[in-house]
């Protein structure tokens, strides 16, 4: 255990989270990463709806989706759901 981790007297009981889970970067679990082919994408946002981690964001200015690789675990659901095969899973 590293010294910066808290001891049992310092942390809240019952496993209550004392910091937001967003501080826990789940992107490093990934083996395959989703990559967008903008030419094929028709911006239907099915991938955005299906992403279980909320790791697909809509960029208003660019009018395009963007993967948040800090949190994307590489599950591949977006690529599976995409009707236009605009998302490819690429080995990291």
């Amino acid at each position, binding site marked *: 255990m590293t010294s910066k981790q808290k001891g049992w007297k310092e942390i809240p009981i*019952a*496993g209550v989270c004392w910091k937001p889970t967003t501080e826990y970067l789940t992107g490093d679990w990934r083996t395959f990463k989703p990559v967008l082919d903008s030419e094929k994408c028709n911006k239907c946002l099915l991938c955005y709806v299906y992403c279980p981690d909320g790791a697909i964001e809509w960029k208003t200015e660019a009018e395009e989706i963007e993967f948040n690789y800090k949190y994307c675990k590489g599950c591949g659901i977006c690529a599976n759901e995409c009707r236009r095969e605009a998302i490819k899973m690429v080995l990291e």
Partner: protein
Amino acid sequence: MAVAKQKVLALSGDEAVAYAVKQSDVDVVAAYPITPQTIIVERFSEYVHNGEVDTEFICVESEHSALTACLTAAAAGARTFTASGSAGLALMHEILYVTSGCRAPVVMAIVNRALSAPINIHCDHTDSMVERDASWIQIYVENSQEAYDSVIQAFKIAEHPDMLLPVMVMLDAFFLSHTLESVNVLSDEAVRKFVGTRKIPLVRSHEGKLVPFKLDPEDPVTMGPLDLYDYYFEHKRQQEEAMQRALQKIKQVHDEYGEISGRGYGNGLIDPYRLEDAEMATICMGSTAGTTKVIVDQLRAKGVKAGLLRLRTYRPLPSQDLTKALENVKAIAVMDRSHSFGAHGGPIFHEVRHVLYDAPTRPQVVNYIYGLGGRDMPQTLIHEIYKDLQKIVETKRVEKPVQFIGLRE
């Protein structure tokens, strides 16, 4: 404080429990019936039907769901109660650990019944003994009066902001659950005042704020999430700390209750009987203590220095109290109404003997497994145990450290 005015009711153990719950202003009861606990749930559902309580009664499809409903209601800040025993308690096993891990102060009455197979509805302590490691406080009662008193105390112990541990109150199947007894009951107001409303402590949330420790959309907190090798161990250590604090809290609540009721059971942890100058003693839990007291009186009348220690609180184990009460006794017989198959004796034997290992004068300790599946424990057999103890005192020798008693060869 003056002892409050009380009335005497003819109640079975189950009814005494239901009556205590009725008076304790419980918000949520979720329960599933199992013999011999059924009457607790039946009586309480009558109170709900008659509008005598302001309680949400949830009918569920299993004990697993019953405890889950109570755990989540308690996590939302409610005062909660359930009851079970035997196979029902076994089905709750998984959620017992979730409840204590989420520090949900659920109170549960267990009517001790044997586990199948062969199927048996009668009394032994196996069902709750297997749950002794679940981080629940365990209190075993001797009679229906104590069942009533202990359930009221249990809410105050469990919910105290320093505790937040669930409490089980155990009573013996049929010997207590179905036997009518004169029970002194306090007024509704006296109980309500004693138990009070549940006080919710503050906790640091993921937003960095101090918020009430309860599930509330206004001030969200997360309880019991994924907790791996980096923090799980620390959270378990906190539960042990709460268990150790419970030793003091149980005594304190027991004494406070004594002030309004005029009743007490030893110091709330152990209940010694004629033990001060005893040379030999038995240790037991539950209703057997009542019979044993009769034998102790008979032996004392003959000049035999016999005593009894009834273990009331089994979790947390009052190890210091046990050592202090027993260190000058020469021979001790631990009576276990359950068996740990393949081990050297029953669970209470293991722990009492373990505690006395460090005593300056290490007494001889022997074990009797008795009463499985509701087998009666008559006076004659208890006499036999004291006879064995007399022999050990005289010869300073133990022939059989572990024996089954009341069993046909």
